[in-house]
């Protein structure tokens, strides 16, 4: 069978121009903003790739259906217990606020959405699509988590679908604090020797030692993630120190591959928050 098909010189030139034009188009695509890239991605996923994605969902559902039912049952039971405990707590909180003369607590909310991880050919996925229900106003960037811990952050949105990065993305950073001791720092992903992605807590002051096993929570600084979301557990201190700060390896609370459903944080709008009074000049005569 023949494969030799050397074309005429003119058609070779035309081919070269076509290839060069396509290379320029590809470079243009890579320079587009996240919003435009999301539009193209969603367009392809809802047309050409739709049958394949539907087949993947079917495989996935049939594969881990029993496991998910068990997990949901356990989650439901623990939520019921927590709900009972919280009812008392909420009432107690309300009464204390009345006594202390504080305004009513502004509750910030979460919206539930489906997490669809990307499927790169090799390695783990660093990006995901997040689909929320109608009437949800996403304010970007927005933190995504599950009751077990932090998942990632939404970077752009189009309609009800957002494009987000898992905490494994090389650009991901989150401000954290230790649950038990007064230690703060910044967490970022780190690929360890065996190719496993863990977290690295950096920027802990040299005089503060974080014991192994300490739980790290989001500090809420930056306004992307609410305060108090579990991020991970400290495994050990890293030997290499940078300057006057310590760094620690952290076992993440949530692995990106485990997440199917997530919660996106919807911070309270600025109008609904009560302004904190600033201390003015002391009244005369005091």
């Amino acid at each position, binding site marked *: *069978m023949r494969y030799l098909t050397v074309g005429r010189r003119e058609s070779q030139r035309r081919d070269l121009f076509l290839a060069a034009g*396509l*290379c320029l188009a590809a470079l243009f695509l890579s320079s587009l903003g996240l919003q435009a890239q999301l539009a193209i991605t969603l367009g392809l996923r809802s047309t050409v790739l739709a049958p*394949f994605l539907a087949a993947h969902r079917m495989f996935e559902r049939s594969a881990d259906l029993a496991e998910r039912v068990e997990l949901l049952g356990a989650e439901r039971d623990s939520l019921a217990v927590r709900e009972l405990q919280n009812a008392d707590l909420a009432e107690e909180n309300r009464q204390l606020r009345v006594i202390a003369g504080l305004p009513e607590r502004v509750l910030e909310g979460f919206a539930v959405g489906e997490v669809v991880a*990307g499927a790169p*050919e090799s390695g783990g996925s*660093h*990006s995901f699509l997040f689909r929320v229900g109608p009437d949800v106003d996403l304010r970007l960037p927005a933190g995504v988590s599950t009751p077990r811990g932090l998942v990632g952050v939404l970077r752009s949105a189009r309609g009800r679908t957002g494009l987000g990065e898992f905490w494994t*993305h090389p650009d991901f950073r989150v401000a954290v604090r230790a649950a038990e001791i007064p230690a703060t720092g910044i967490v970022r992903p780190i690929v360890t020797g065996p190719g496993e992605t863990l977290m690295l807590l950096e920027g802990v002051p040299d005089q503060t030692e974080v014991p192994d096993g300490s739980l790290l929570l989001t500090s809420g600084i930056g306004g992307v993630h609410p305060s108090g979301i579990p991020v991970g557990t400290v495994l050990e201190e890293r030997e290499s120190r940078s300057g006057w700060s310590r760094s620690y390896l952290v076992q993440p609370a949530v692995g990106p591959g485990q997440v199917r459903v997530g919660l996106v944080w919807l911070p309270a709008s600025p109008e609904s928050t009560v302004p904190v009074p600033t201390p003015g000049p002391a009244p005369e005569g005091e």
Partner: protein
Amino acid sequence: MMADADRSAAAWNAVAVVALVVAHFLLRPFWVGLPVGPDLLVGALLVGTLRLRAGHAALFGFALGLLESAMALEGLGGYALALTLLGYLGARSRDLLFADARFYVFSYLFVGTWIGHAALQLLGTTSPGIPVLVLGSAATAAITSLVCGAAEAGAVALAVRGS
């Protein structure tokens, strides 16, 4: 007579390419977690370039690159660029090298997949280390050249039987 045989071979080649692309997008959840597996996307592109003009091969690579980045949720533009270049250079190398030589298809698929797979990995969000890039891509290329070479050989056999 020869033109008929070529046309038939091109038609069966197209069937093989479509089957490889469909298999790639359909079966990827099964080998996403494996350290080494066939790269049917690059393999399909290279099998397609065996019978496409260089410009058309570049266009095919561009389209596959877009689909791949939409599926992976990363590398939009980058994957398209890599596969456009691979398609164009693959078709041109077929023109310039001894394409009718024995074992040409297997060695073409092996070298092409090695380069293409390594390029896609480099363009991903996290690039693997050099050993993984070189050795992992070589193992992927070996498996891919066997699978896609068999698909191409089957297409040729069907074309010969039909003509």
